């Protein structure tokens, strides 16, 4: 009887997901060949928000670290890129990596402080650090101080690959830059999802999921969990910094209030994750699509839009705390990115461990 069991992470759906994902990624990479410039810009927005949402979900949904200060890493990543390009004449694309590194460096002292704050106070602690970062950057005259600055035209003109893309799709330079940014965003999103999935399936990641699911287990793996908190926090900061650099490379204009905006880079991201389904990889993907649709429909209504978004977020949290994806997977048992180990075989095939 015992031999009839085996432990697996794979579900039939996950194999199908893998194939579908591969097809989707190829199709998305080829998008510039058939999609309009407006659509490429929309996709860029969706993909960067998705990336931010995945990292926030990793923090809050898996690590239990509810940060309201992710804008610190978006802003610092973006400003590192601007600083390197404007003051150091660095290559903009390589400077995206620098954005990630800068966010990582900021994350170390941030974690040091914020981890001293228990539970809910951690949230506001991260917010304070983000405010400090914003106020400090506003003092940095070299990149425009409080009013901000633009990327120099020269740097944009000499952007690598742009000439190649112009020739390939027969488009203007600005459209070619959008295509380049889009490809980078797509690459980042794919790496992010794959990386988060991988991280959660490592032994430590599984412990993390166990901690979230079961507070008793949390006590027995206490030591591991605290190291995992650091890993999760630093990883999220790095990825968020990369996204920040990329977002502002595409925008080509920056100001502290925009780059460190709690609404744009944390509130939206939280709503995406909550509406889609916190604590799953599928949730943010679904959430970002819903968010995009809502924004397309309602963005003209300004503050009404934000109120509606807030009310939807509250309702989801109260009445369907596992989000849209939670509702779907409850009804169908579908799991595209299975993380928990399942015991298969024997008579009791559906037991989760």
């Amino acid at each position: 009887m015992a031999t009839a069991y085996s432990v697996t992470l794979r579900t039939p759906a996950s194999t199908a997901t893998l194939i579908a994902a591969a097809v989707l990624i190829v199709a998305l990479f080829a998008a510039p060949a058939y999609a309009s410039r407006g659509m490429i810009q929309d996709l860029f927005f969706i993909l960067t928000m998705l990336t931010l949402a995945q990292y926030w979900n990793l923090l809050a949904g898996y690590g239990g670290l509810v940060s309201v200060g992710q804008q610190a890493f978006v802003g610092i990543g973006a400003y590192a890129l601007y600083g390197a390009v404007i003051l150091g004449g660095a290559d903009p694309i390589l400077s995206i990596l620098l954005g990630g590194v800068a966010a990582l460096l900021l994350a170390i002292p941030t974690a040091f402080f914020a981890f001293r704050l228990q539970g809910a106070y951690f949230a506001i602690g991260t917010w304070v650090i983000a405010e400090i970062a914003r106020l400090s950057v506003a003092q940095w005259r070299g990149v425009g101080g409080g009013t901000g600055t633009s990327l120099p035209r020269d740097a944009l003109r000499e952007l690598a690959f742009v000439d190649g893309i112009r020739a390939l799709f027969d488009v203007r330079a600005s459209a070619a830059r959008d295509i380049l940014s889009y490809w980078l965003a797509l690459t980042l999103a794919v790496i992010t999802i794959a990386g988060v999935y991988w991280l959660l399936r490592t032994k430590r990641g599984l412990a993390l999921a166990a901690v979230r699911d079961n507070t008793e287990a949390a006590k027995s793996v206490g030591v591991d969990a605290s190291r995992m908190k650091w890993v999760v926090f630093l990883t999220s900061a790095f990825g968020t910094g990369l996204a920040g650099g990329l977002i502002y490379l595409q925008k080509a204009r920056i100001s502290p209030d925009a780059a460190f905006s709690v609404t744009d880079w944390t509130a939206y991201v939280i709503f995406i994750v909550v509406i889609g389904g916190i604590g799953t990889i599928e949730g943010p993907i679904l959430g970002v699509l819903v968010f995009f649709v809502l924004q397309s429909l309602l963005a003209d209504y300004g503050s009404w839009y934000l109120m509606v978004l807030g009310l939807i977020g509250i309702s989801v949290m109260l009445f369907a705390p596992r989000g849209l994806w939670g509702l779907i997977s409850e009804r169908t048992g579908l799991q595209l990115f299975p993380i928990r180990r399942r015991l298969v075989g024997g008579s009791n095939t559906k037991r989760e461990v």
Partner: protein
Amino acid sequence: MIWIDTIIQGILLGGLYALFAAGLSLVFGIMRLVNLAHGDLIILGAYIILISVTVLGLNPFFAILIAAPLMFALGWALQKLVLNRTLGEDILPPLLVTFGLSVVIQNGLLEGFSADSQRISAGALETASISVGPISMGVLPLLTFGSAILVIVVLNHIFYRTAIGRAFRATSDDAVTASLMGIKPERVFATATGLAMVVAAIAALYLGVRANFDPSIGPARLIYAFEAVIIGGLGSLWGTLLGGVIIGVAQTVGAAINPEWQILAGHVAFLVVLLIRPRGLFPRGN
């Protein structure tokens, strides 16, 4: 001399921050709930007072008699209908729901009152000052500070000397056993949040009379309040007052050196205290 003046300004400013913080501290102490919308609720209170003053022509200090019961009812209903559902082991639901609430209130105010700066007018009081020797102090900041002390004395009295205060402490210790004593925990929590909103209304009065406000400034007030609570040590209202004073003094001293450093200096003071005393200055035992 200018420095003494600056520091006194800072101390008095700390009274305002303690008023922001007292409600936050009360609610956290009783139900371990951090209300991320606390700052926005204060701003909402300021608009309620503003309307009472402009529409009904009331003196702002009488308008508080309208705002306080309204805010109590709002807090009570909010807790009873929404926040009670989020309480539990998991810290995510209360955080995310109150964060959503913050966004809703902010944008609701924006829709209702536009982004224009407002101010509650208190007539001659705004500029009145008294001199003690060479130092002159504004009457309004003094009133603010006095109110903060009064609020803390009253809250401590309620907490430690009254039946509802006993129910607060018992429920916070152990809600299930409290219910065996005939206490309804949901009702106790609702009352606590209502009380916190009354304090928020008082804070709103002084916030609105002292300086301009608009719908977007709530989160910054939340942050000051939070810093005061953490510096003071969770659970001690006098500690919260001291925390507010530290933030206030840091801000006025920072501003005296360079006007752009005002807010930054407050945050930095918070980080320094957190670095030296991770549990705040007066942590409650256990």
